[in-house]
């Protein structure tokens, strides 16, 4: 999995590319928690180029979300492929994560409501 990180006006955008599963999800958690420790707690995970995710990847995202919220941060997901969106619906994780159709809509949401709305 490739992880690209961009800081922009207090928002950290993680653009993920590839597969999110048992073999690589711990790298993602390390990368995000590093940012949280640096005080960057407002973040967007852009999944537009994630072509595969399984229960291990989902479990890692849940684990990261819990830690981000524990640190009083906010993490949202954007640009999910339709089949990735589907497994968020089936697992009902769509009720736990904030999911936006596009990164620009997520940025707007942070501007209007900087705190977690869930």
């Amino acid at each position, binding site marked *: 999995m490739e992880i690209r990180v961009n800081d922009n006006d207090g928002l950290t955008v993680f653009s993920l590319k590839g597969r999110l599963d048992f073999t690589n999800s711990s790298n993602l958690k390390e990368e995000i928690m590093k940012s949280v420790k640096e005080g960057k707690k407002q973040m967007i995970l852009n999944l537009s180029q994630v072509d*595969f995710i*399984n229960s291990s990847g989902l479990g890692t995202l849940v684990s990261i979300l819990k830690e981000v919220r524990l640190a009083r941060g906010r993490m949202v997901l954007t640009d999910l492929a339709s*089949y990735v969106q589907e*497994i968020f619906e089936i697992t*009902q994780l769509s009720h736990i994560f904030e999911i936006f159709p596009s990164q620009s809509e997520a940025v707007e949401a942070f501007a209007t409501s900087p705190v977690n709305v869930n």
Partner: protein
Amino acid sequence: MNQVKLSFKAVSGDFDEFYQSVYEMADRLKLSGTERFRFVLCISEAFTNAFVHGNKQDPSKVINVNFRWDESTVQVDIEDEGAGKADQIDLEHATAVAADQTGGRGIGFLKEYADRIKVEPRDEGGLRMSIYWKLGDNIPISGNQASA
């Protein structure tokens, strides 16, 4: 019936080779889009289960992945060399919904997306998980029948 038999050493680095094989099989079956994703997801869940819970990540143990297919059906058997018992996998109560838990969804995906799944002990030791789909309609047809 066509058949491809593959074996993978249970180390993390072999997952790339495993995924490549599954995607090649999806291509042979002419799966695309959502069908392709669901097919790979189910096999990935069974493989990860065999690696983590079956072989306990023991690098000396092997996972066998056997594909069998014809014009109307496909069956994938995933075999581990662990000490697990078939009744330790609770197919009946497995669900993909696990609230905010970090685990417990994998078998639920199999129930959701495969037409039938079966878990049985191997004569050589370890477990065999068999996943079945009917081809032609959309893979998969939910509302499957699980058996252990």
